[in-house]
């Protein structure tokens, strides 16, 4: 199954500035400039498409006028550039990026579900190593910046709450470790 993508494209040399359709491509000395209507592509798609070229080109983004965006690709030294091919590749990439954004938006729920399952399954529950990696010493071990160990009354200064300056709440560090090292290996699968 093949897809056809229709659009308007005009390629001109710098000497041959011709008024044009929706996309203008101007080939210069070692550069190619592509201008298009910004409403065609989401801004993230434009950034994404331009970014693909940073290994081969210096990339400049600019506004070319009312609702027009200009992307200039200048070949890095020692890297010969086929300006026409770069312009075509940029436009293909713009289309790909824009469509991908649209697909991702349509499938957001599915993607989030798969991603969270993939990351959750692979990473597993927090282990002892993460607890040990935390910045805990004698001076900070019993800090409770979120007031987790406080009673509701203490935290919100309700009736019966402890006076200001009362003893710091005690946190039970041992209760926060989900899994010791061997158990972090995960449950068995069938």
């Amino acid at each position, binding site marked *: 199954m093949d897809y056809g993508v229709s659009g308007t494209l005009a390629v001109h040399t710098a000497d041959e500035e011709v008024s044009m359709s929706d996309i203008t491509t101007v080939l210069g000395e070692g550069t190619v400039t592509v201008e298009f209507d910004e409403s065609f592509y989401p801004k993230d798609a434009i950034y994404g498409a331009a970014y693909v070229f940073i290994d081969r080109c210096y990339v400049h983004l600019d506004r070319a006028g009312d609702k027009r965006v200009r992307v200039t690709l200048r070949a890095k030294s020692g890297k010969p550039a086929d300006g026409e091919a770069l312009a075509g590749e940029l436009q293909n990439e713009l289309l790909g990026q824009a469509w991908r954004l649209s697909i991702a938006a349509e*499938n957001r729920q599915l993607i989030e579900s798969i991603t969270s399952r993939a990351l959750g399954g692979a990473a597993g529950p927090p282990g002892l190593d993460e607890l040990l990696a935390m910045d805990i010493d004698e001076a900070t071990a019993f800090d409770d910046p979120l007031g987790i160990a406080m009673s509701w009354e203490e935290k919100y200064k309700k009736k019966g709450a402890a006076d200001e300056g009362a003893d710091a709440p005690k946190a039970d560090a041992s209760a926060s470790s989900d899994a010791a090292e061997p158990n972090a290996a*995960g449950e*068995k699968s069938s």
Partner: protein
Amino acid sequence: MTQLISLGQKPAAPPDLVPIRFRDVAGDVLLTNPWGDWVFVSQAEFADLARGHLAAGSDVYTRLAERNFLRSKVDVEKVAAAMRNKKRFLDYGPNLHMFVVTLRCNETCVYCHASRAEMDAVHTDMTPELAEKCVDLALQTTSPAITIEFQGGEPLVAFDTVKHVVKYALQRNRAYGKDLGFTMVSNLSLMDDEKLKFLVEHKVQMCTSIDGPEPIHTKQRVLVGGSSYFESVKWIERINKAYIDLGLDPTLYHVEALLTTTRDALKKPREIVDTYINLGCRAIFLRPVDPFGFAEKTRAKIEYDRAEYREFYRTAVEHILDYNRRGEQVLERYAAIFLTKILQGEDPNFLDIRSPGGSAIGALAYNYDGKIFTSDEGRMMHETGDDSFVIGDVRTATYRGLMKHETVRALILASIREVQPDCVSCTYAPYCGVQPEHNHRTQGTLFGRMRESTLCSVHKGIQDFLFEKLRENDPKTVEILRRWTTVRERTHFVHASAAS
């Protein structure tokens, strides 16, 4: 190529039809649904469906109903359970842990330049201390089974490290109780009786490369002072005999050999198959050359048009099918992976052909210097100066830190088929997978452009071939293809869990 069907009206699918993807295959139209069922309809039947016509009780109605293509007939619970089963690999972290114990190698291969070092480059050997840290990290995976794969370079060059890792991992695994296995990818030319004894005794599965008949193999894999082919063959036979002496079934337990299809190999599909079968191999993996492991300037000499590869593949697999028709049981690995999904509705968890892909969440690569990569491909790109896929160092990394690394998240997102233009509407989406590292290497973007992807071209070409065979529906051929989907576990190589 799909022909245009003149409908004379706006297309309107029958309301009972589930979402479908479609593709012309051998004159008919292949339909697949999102959960991987498939059915062929004729062009005329497809035109009727596009007009919204579907008569209850008709032949096409019955076929669609039987294959879960009609909403009113779908067993939702059954389909949901099948989908959960197919994605069960998401419940666990990496089970494959590749240890590059050295970059040194005694062979020089045309397709492998950057990821090897000369034999005097001892600084590219992994130290025992670093190897232990790799083992400690690997054992923290949430996967209940792990395989440690020794790679290089040539791992037999650093055999003391291999031995140390095996012993240390077996000892450490007593605390973890995982099903632990070892494999070694080796050219075998540095094998000797003492090494073989250790490897067999410790159930290290061995895998080697055979690039085709002797002239091709010897030309592509240069061994100074000897023949890389005859060394490999000699040790393949010795190792296979060792398995037989242990009373193991030789059809299941034998040296696995991998092909890297080069330009020279493309001309010899039948001879390559014959070579493998004569060596006693029962599985042939017709892998195209990949773009990793060599510098950019070498690519022009190595790469080839994937249309040539697809033709090579078809000829070679037809030859393999002929062997099977004559009673020889031998399979092609790519076909087996796809057919397991197509015919059995199972996912064999082949890391490069699943969604999301297996980079990092299915496998990790540990370099000799302690750097950790999302895949061996990522590791090879590092050797050519691209550090995009380095996600840590065994001296400082934590397991969960690796799994939550931003590169890992990006790789997951980039390898979900439903995110990709083309993949999202591809008929083969339920069976296929993308490899973001390949996209990055060949196209400069993790997400890739499938229209220009050589990997997509290969995957599509193989699935076209397989569905053509299924469309032909020759009973003998279909029986052979079904047999290729039967997974026989090599339990001998598993050090069963024995947590203490």
